[in-house]
């Protein structure tokens, strides 16, 4: 009862939805939640955005249950509910998609978009992808910065730049071939450490170990880790723990790659 009152007062056009219209709204809510979840949004944002879209498009209430592998959405209208489940697969972090979906939601809320407009707006979102060479270049630079922040000398920074830049190129290539992220992180860590280990083998610079440590830093799953703690703090324990576990697995895969490379080149990491 309370929910219905709140729903109808928040809804700008409080016309009763027909069944097919309610179905359409349910689909749009599910699509919204799924797009956000696939591209790396935290659970609070997914739930909040999908709920607001549903209410803005005329539903009285929207309930969402989130899992890491699926989304369940129920819309309520005139005491009828429609529930739908969508399978979630990770598409990699893409902030551009998150922003576009959110702005579509805000436009629906201010009444600029109706159901058809909103659906068309979602359909034309093409995830932004920077060119691979550019990503490799800037990530290499970022890792060189990390090396410098950890007090490496110029030669060490250069080694970190080359190692992590090449490794980032490998990582993007393997991701495009649809390898499992675990295999991808393992192989990438092996490449990065192998290149950075040459600094130690040939005695390049006075801080080769810092360069080795910095060259695998682009494999730290920073975004999932921050999302994991944010989810757990905000009460989404189940997605939070899953994200934490995924981040740990990726770090373990990276670690295995580092160990293999240090065994091959006979240098024992930066310990």
């Amino acid at each position, binding site marked *: 009862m309370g929910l219905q009152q709140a729903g109808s007062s928040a809804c700008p056009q409080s016309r009763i939805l027909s069944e097919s219209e309610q179905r359409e709204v349910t689909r749009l809510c599910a699509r919204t939640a799924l797009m956000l979840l696939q591209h*790396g949004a*935290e659970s609070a944002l997914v739930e909040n955005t999908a709920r*607001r879209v549903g209410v803005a498009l005329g539903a009285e209430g929207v309930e969402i249950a989130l899992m890491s592998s699926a989304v369940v959405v129920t819309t309520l209208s005139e005491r009828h509910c429609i529930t739908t489940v969508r399978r979630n697969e990770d598409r990699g*972090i893409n902030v551009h998609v998150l922003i576009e979906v959110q702005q579509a939601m805000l436009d629906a809320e201010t009444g600029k978009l109706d159901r058809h407009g909103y659906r068309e707006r979602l359909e034309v979102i093409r995830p932004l992808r920077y060119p691979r060479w550019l990503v490799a270049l800037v990530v290499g*630079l*970022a890792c060189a910065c990390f090396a410098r922040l950890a007090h490496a000398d110029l030669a060490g920074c250069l080694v970190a730049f080359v190692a992590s830049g090449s490794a980032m190129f490998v990582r993007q290539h393997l991701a495009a071939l649809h390898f499992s992220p675990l295999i991808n992180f393992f192989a990438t860590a092996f490449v990065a450490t192998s290149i950075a280990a040459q600094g130690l083998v040939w005695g390049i610079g006075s801080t080769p170990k810092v360069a080795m440590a910095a060259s695998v830093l682009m494999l730290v799953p920073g975004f999932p*880790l921050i999302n994991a703690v944010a989810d757990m703090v905000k009460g989404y324990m189940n997605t939070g723990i899953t994200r934490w576990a995924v981040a740990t697995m990726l770090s373990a895969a990276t670690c295995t790659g580092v160990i293999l490379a240090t065994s091959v080149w006979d240098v024992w990491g930066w310990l």
Partner: protein
Amino acid sequence: MNVFIVGFIENTLLAALAATGFGVSFNVPVRLLGVCAAGGAVARGLRFLIADVWEVAPIEWATFIAAATVSTLGVFVGRKLRMHPKAFTVAAMIPMIPGVPIFTALLSLARMQRSGVTPELLAAAINSGLSACFIVAALAVGLALPGMLFYRRRSLI
């Protein structure tokens, strides 16, 4: 004192560059990369001031304060740009992620498995593992702080 000024400038510039680099890898749109860079610079600069120059707080508390500050500033910027502040604040936090401690902890564990437990390896594993966990928690809770304190029942945007 001069050393600290140089260190401060170096920290902010390098953090800005690193945050931009990771922004690109997260596919942040070009127009927001500057915001990421500024966020990274403020965060790392503030942490450097608190933990290394003034030495008023240990690194995890300094991280927490820096993350909370950037997040609070991010709320204002986000409302102006009509987007959730996480779009740029997460990339800004990346320069503060304790990458080396995370891998040091895991590598020490692997080494203990291979060559037996020694007090040094055990200490390295526990010290860096704990420090990494605390810093990541400080980052995430700091980022979530404006939402938990000021926007309890309201949406950020």
